[in-house]
């Protein structure tokens, strides 16, 4: 693919040609129309809705959105549930460093020409191609008060307080949901890291072994620095995904117990579609806040990695 990338498209006819132009736009038309209608228009109209009163009775009567300036944002930041949900989404970012380091470590483990390695790689990827609804079914059994997690921990004498309903306690539900995100993600990032690991010259690793570096030292002193560009990319993807977490929450806890797993997009979804609210204006405003936070975090992510690398990756 890289070879093809380097080859420039041959300028068959470098001069302007009506025929080529018309043909090109005819071929591009379906994609452009669909992208405009379902990607760009929602972005513009959704942003506009954030500054309006829309939905509920107003929507039912067929009235257009009514401009109310920043009122939605005032409502949002006075709503304890929104603040909780935004806080939970930010707290969810804890999964990012854990997931990235674990995926990189797993990639290092399977990046050897040893028996059964293709099997391990494939098996680790199976959760990635598993639907969230199946994950919900299976993990609810695991987390059940009578489920396997309690059985294993009990057998190891790690449950001094007795069996726990992991998704039913406001102290554990958040982490239980996060573990499902981790479970569905590590195989995906492992594959991305595997591609990056192929680029580390073997001599470097061998030299370190000869110098007596332990596996732990080699991981932190060679693998991590050499993989910085890939780690940056994966952390970025992972950060945005974590901030936008919704499906896991929706299928596992629906935001509960006691709003302990209520995330920002759960708030957006809930305001717009759950119950009898249909408050599209407020929901869009909440979405805008999440988008701004996501943008800020992406910039921060870039800065962090550029500065710590010292040479500007």
């Amino acid at each position, binding site marked *: 693919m890289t070879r093809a990338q380097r080859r420039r498209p041959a300028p*068959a006819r470098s001069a302007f040609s009506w025929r080529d132009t018309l043909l090109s736009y005819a071929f591009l038309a379906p994609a452009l129309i669909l992208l405009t209608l379902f990607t760009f228009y929602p972005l513009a109209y959704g942003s506009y809705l954030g500054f309006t009163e829309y939905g509920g009775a107003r929507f039912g009567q067929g009235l257009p959105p009514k401009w109310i300036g920043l009122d939605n944002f005032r409502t949002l930041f006075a709503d304890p549930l929104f603040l909780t949900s935004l806080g939970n989404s930010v707290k969810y970012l804890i999964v990012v460093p854990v997931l990235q380091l674990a995926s990189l470590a797993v990639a290092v483990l399977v990046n050897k020409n040893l028996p059964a390695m293709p099997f391990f790689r494939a098996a680790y990827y199976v959760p990635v191609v598993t639907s969230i609804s*199946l994950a919900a079914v299976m993990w609810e059994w695991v987390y059940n008060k009578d489920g396997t997690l309690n059985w294993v921990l009990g057998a190891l004498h790690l449950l001094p307080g007795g069996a726990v309903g992991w998704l039913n306690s406001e102290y554990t539900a958040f982490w239980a949901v996060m573990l499902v995100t981790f479970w569905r993600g590590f195989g995906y990032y492992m594959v991305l890291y595997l591609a990056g690991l192929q680029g580390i010259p073997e001599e470097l690793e061998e030299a370190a072994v000869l110098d007596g570096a332990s596996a732990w030292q080699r991981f932190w002193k060679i693998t991590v620095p050499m993989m910085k560009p890939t780690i940056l990319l994966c952390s970025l993807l992972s950060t945005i995904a974590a901030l936008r977490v919704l499906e896991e929450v929706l299928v596992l806890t629906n935001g509960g117990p006691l709003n302990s797993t209520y995330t920002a997009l759960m708030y957006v979804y809930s305001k717009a579609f759950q119950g009898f609210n249909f408050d599209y204006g407020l929901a869009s405003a909440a979405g805008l806040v999440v988008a701004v936070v996501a943008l800020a975090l992406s910039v921060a992510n870039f800065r962090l990695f550029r500065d710590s690398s010292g040479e500007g990756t």
Partner: protein
Amino acid sequence: MSAVTRPIPLTVPRRKSNRKALRLVLRYVLLTLVLIFAVFPFVWTLAIAITDKRAGTSIYDFPASLFPKAVTLNNFLEVYRTFELGKYVWNSISITVLTVIGTLVVSALAAYPLARFRFPGRNIIFAIIVATLVLPGETTFIVNTLTLKKLGLLGTHLGVVIPTIAGAFGIFLMRQAFLGVPTALLEAARLDGAGEMTILTRIMLPLTKPSLAALGIFTLVGTWNAYFWPMLVLSAAPDKAPLSVAVLRLKGQFNYDPFNIAAGSLIMMLPVLLVFLAAQRYFMKGMEGAVK
């Protein structure tokens, strides 16, 4: 810590190979632990699904529930009959087939001029498509639902499909593939008087089958598994829901029959698992082209 691992000069070769063997064992132990974490839920679900429930067993009876004594396929038949699972299987197939075909057609059409023609506005269109990768999509689902309502597509399979088929991933994947087709071949075809549509369907597409297959497979797996979007679009039309949405509903309905739920879940998982095992190499390449 480092003092322990630093090799003593003049180490006898024996000790070195011992340590190597130890390291190898350690690697496989770690790999096995990760393996258990990754696949345990599936193994347990499989065990539950094939358990003969007439023996009066509980799914929470450990470790017995992991090693069913009496095995049966009855749960699969039962869930298929009592829940009309066939209907949802059909819905999943309909949505997935439409999405795969739509994605392939739209992506190939858009990629062809981007790979092969020079025309005014090309760079702008390129930038527009790249932009979709980084634009925030937090409110998209709200507006798209409203749009579908206006178009009369809310609660239909087409409503689930149409908003998802145009995407940067597919367009770039196909463009990359088209760039790899030798120009001489196209020039020869043009000299023979072939139209652009003929060139696309007779030369470009046959020569880029691997990329088409990759795009088709990624789309297939993603669509089959998708939960949130079809749930939203079809919330008022429960009979049109795909398996991914129905399985969770099944959970409410069969609250006291986990054996049937497990069987239903596996019916849903099976096609994706088969596709994944058959086309592993596509997934394991890590979408390199798309990421670069």
